[in-house]
């Protein structure tokens, strides 16, 4: 278990950096249509910001924001968004993951496809972020020895 490490420099720097890292991660996810980036990369950056939070403030203190229970729900939600978009396309008369058939109020089919791509990127981002943090939390909360804490 990572405990709170009393270092004012680390805490202050992370307090300043974390919002910018998260904004950048959202930018990478949303701007995947026009520049390198997308769900995987943005999700990893977003996960890294929360890992920095846990490393700077300790798992106990950040329990209110991120816990393994919430992360499990989020990871499943990410995959559910992805496969759900595919299923909606299937229900509205296309093939599975054929975004052209999504019921969106947009003018042309290519725009609908672009929105479908954005939707699954968001799903991938949420899933990757949650899995990154939960693997980190699981590994750091693992203790060797007989305590089995």
């Amino acid at each position, binding site marked *: 278990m990572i405990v709170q490490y009393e270092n004012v420099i680390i805490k202050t720097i992370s307090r300043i950096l974390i919002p910018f890292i998260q904004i950048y991660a959202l930018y990478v996810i949303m701007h995947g249509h026009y520049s390198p980036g997308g769900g995987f990369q943005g999700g990893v950056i977003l996960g890294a910001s929360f890992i920095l939070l846990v490393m700077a403030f300790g798992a106990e203190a950040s329990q209110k924001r991120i816990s393994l229970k919430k992360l499990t729900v989020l990871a*499943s939600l990410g995959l559910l968004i*992805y496969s759900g978009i595919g299923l909606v396309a299937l229900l509205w008369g296309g093939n599975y993951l054929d975004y052209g058939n999504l019921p969106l109020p947009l003018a042309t089919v*290519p725009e609908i496809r672009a929105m479908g791509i954005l939707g699954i990127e968001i799903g991938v981002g949420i899933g990757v972020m949650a899995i990154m943090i939960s693997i980190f939390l699981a590994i750091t909360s693992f203790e060797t020895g007989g305590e089995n804490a």
Partner: protein
Amino acid sequence: MKIFVLLVVLLTGGLLLAGMEEMPGWGDPSSPPSMHVSPRYIEKTMEETATPNMVTSVLADYRGYDTLGETTVIFAAGVACLLLLRKDDP
């Protein structure tokens, strides 16, 4: 046993290296992917998906099943990690 394993590894590696001779050259314009699949994506991406970044449209639209599989693999890895390492109390 170790010598047998070494022989198997050397044989497999030799076969792979020998098979590389048959591969198309790097960036060969007359290789099958460059003749059919790549021009199709390059020409049709904008008019079919309105996405300027071709990598994104191939990854998420044309190869959507592949990316769904990747996400599932990551999810499975995380769930396996949690099952093995998580403490029992919530």
